[in-house]
């Protein structure tokens, strides 16, 4: 009897310790007592100017105080990432008396600093995590335009990400990316590849939050696992693995902890670079099964193989259009690697680039109609973006190290990529205009990233 109670308690403790491993992207259930539907605006058409002082800890224990501080800092970073708001610099917050509740906010002082909006929150420790209340105030009218309550989570960063996404949605009609994730391959563990006398480091698939926090290893293949791609539902990652000797496609279902083998057998050749169809039912990839690298489409369970290209040159690195009706890929059929687009039925091929050397096309989400790719520029590569409607290409990086393997954020406003600008190959994010570059990884080499949908 005692034993089963202890077991039950342990199970609860384990579940609590692993906040969102079981249930991905499930926000703490928001409860909105009133939806006023008002938005904060800036003066004279400029971006609204926000202040995000530390959330108010309603109890004095260290955990609550730390949680309150973390929520406000992460929220500030999340809001700043989309550049929809401007901010009162945080170092002047100290000159303003701290509120101790929603009842004693010094609105006139914030108004003196030209704040348009003010985010005030309270954090209270309860039995199941924290009870967080947040109000976005219009500083001029002193009205709470967006009050929200968050219960049931003890993960401060996740609470902040949720608040940020909701503020962006309600105030700017924008799908924020604060709860999205990245994936990439990494040799950071320094483990040696077995079965070779050469000194070779294995690579494993890693995931992290969009801001580089919570970096976690997904695969334990002890081999070369590279080029991961998120499934549209964010529950699976498809990648290229050498665990059977040659290169094959595998899918890790990260929340179930299961592994699917998409290409297998003796006669399948090498299989590289799976890319999910937008509906998540199919993978486009490159394979040498018929002699030389061609683009194929296969159902995620390995059935229904279809060949898309037929050319004696190299065809590799496919990506789907957002509608799933077209596939862009790299081919050297003209003599050098260039980007091509073909219908998902294999018809209507067209060449899209005529540069020195292009690879890793990545189609943007709607409403943008763009393909980002790596383009050789001097000794290394830079990230370029082709606007398919105008045919105009623009560069986003300019020779700081070599820059490769771009992938769009789900709202199309950011790009994750690999760069050697800080030394080894690392994952970076930047805004779609090339600004706001952030380094995501630091340990080992980290490459070929993708952004969850």
């Amino acid at each position, binding site marked *: 009897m005692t034993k089963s109670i202890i077991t039950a308690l342990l199970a609860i403790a384990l579940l609590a310790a692993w906040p969102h491993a079981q249930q991905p992207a499930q926000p703490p259930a928001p409860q909105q007592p009133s939806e006023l539907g008002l938005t904060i605006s800036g003066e004279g058409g400029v971006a609204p100017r926000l202040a995000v002082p530390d959330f108010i800890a309603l109890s004095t224990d260290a955990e609550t105080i730390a949680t309150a501080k973390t929520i406000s800092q992460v929220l500030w970073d999340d809001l700043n990432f989309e550049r929809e708001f401007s901010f009162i610099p945080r170092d002047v917050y100290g000159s303003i008396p701290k509120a101790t509740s929603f009842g004693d906010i010094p609105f006139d002082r914030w108004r003196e600093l030209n704040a348009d909006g003010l985010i005030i929150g309270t954090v209270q420790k309860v039995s199941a995590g924290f009870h967080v209340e947040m109000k976005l105030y219009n500083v001029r009218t002193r009205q709470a335009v967006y009050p929200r309550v968050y219960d049931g989570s003890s993960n401060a960063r996740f609470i902040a990400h949720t608040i940020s996404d909701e503020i962006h949605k309600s105030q700017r009609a924008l799908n924020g990316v604060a709860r999205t994730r990245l994936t990439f391959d990494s040799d950071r563990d320094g483990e040696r*590849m077995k079965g070779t006398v050469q000194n070779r480091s294995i690579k494993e698939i890693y995931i992290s939050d969009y801001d580089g926090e919570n970096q976690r290893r997904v695969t334990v293949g002890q081999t070369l696992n*590279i080029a991961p791609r998120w499934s549209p539902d964010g529950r699976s990652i498809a990648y290229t693995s050498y665990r059977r000797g040659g290169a094959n496609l595998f899918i890790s279902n990260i929340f179930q902890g299961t592994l699917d083998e998409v290409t297998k057998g003796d006669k399948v050749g090498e299989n*590289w670079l799976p890319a999910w169809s937008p509906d998540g039912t199919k993978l486009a990839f490159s394979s040498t099964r018929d002699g030389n690298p061609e683009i194929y489409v296969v159902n995620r369970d390995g059935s229904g193989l279809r060949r898309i290209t037929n050319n004696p040159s*190299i065809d590799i690195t496919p990506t789907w259009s957002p509608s799933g009706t077209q596939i862009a890929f790299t081919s050297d059929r003209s003599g050098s690697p260039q980007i091509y687009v073909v219908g998902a039925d294999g018809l209507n091929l067209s060449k899209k680039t005529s540069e020195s050397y292009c690879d890793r096309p990545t189609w943007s989400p709607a409403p943008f109609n763009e393909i980002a790719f*790596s383009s050789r520029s001097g000794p290394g590569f830079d990230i370029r973006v082709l606007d398919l409607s105008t045919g105009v290409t623009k560069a986003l990086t300019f020779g700081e190290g070599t820059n490769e393997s771009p992938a769009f954020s789900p709202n199309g406003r950011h790009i994750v990529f690999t760069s050697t600008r800080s030394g080894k190959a690392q994952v970076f994010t930047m805004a779609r205009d090339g600004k706001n570059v952030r380094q995501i990884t630091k340990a080992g080499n980290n490459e070929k990233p993708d952004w969850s949908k």
Partner: protein
Amino acid sequence: MKAARSIATLVASAALVTAVACGKKTPPVARPAPPPPTTTAPTPPGPPAPPEPAREPVSVPAEPVRDDAISSASLDDLNKNSPLKPVYFELDSSELSAANQKALDDNAALLKRYPSWAVTVEGHCDERGTAEYNLALGERRAIAARAYLVSLGIAADRLRTVSYGKEFPFDPGHDETAFAKNRRAHFVITSK
């Protein structure tokens, strides 16, 4: 007889040079020189020579020689200092140069001498190509080396290929010396 041999050698090398020159554009097509036609060799004048002693075996022994260092070495030791020479490529290229073909000729001779060996031909690239395209370029390099060996009479089922793109550089440096070492087809003996 000595004269006959050197004439035959001359003919053979001329044929090899031609084969190399012709083979430059389409590597796998290059073929080894045909064996010298023994019947057309002129017979030396004077009294008939005594029968040639049979101490120079022409054909490759079917079994590896038991006491040689190569056949007694472990697979790991063999691969650490491999008797199979790597071949190196130009930037963005999978073309086999004359020097590559010479190395592959030697590798083929060794593979004929040790007919039980199975070999994986690894294709590698330097960091100046993209990670993705290099997977296919490395494969193309491995295939080019393998096809040449097959054209020399090595059984195709002894030669697997795999491409590692630019994932496993042999030299971690970032200069041309390192790049040149990293653009290669590398031979790994997987069983003997």
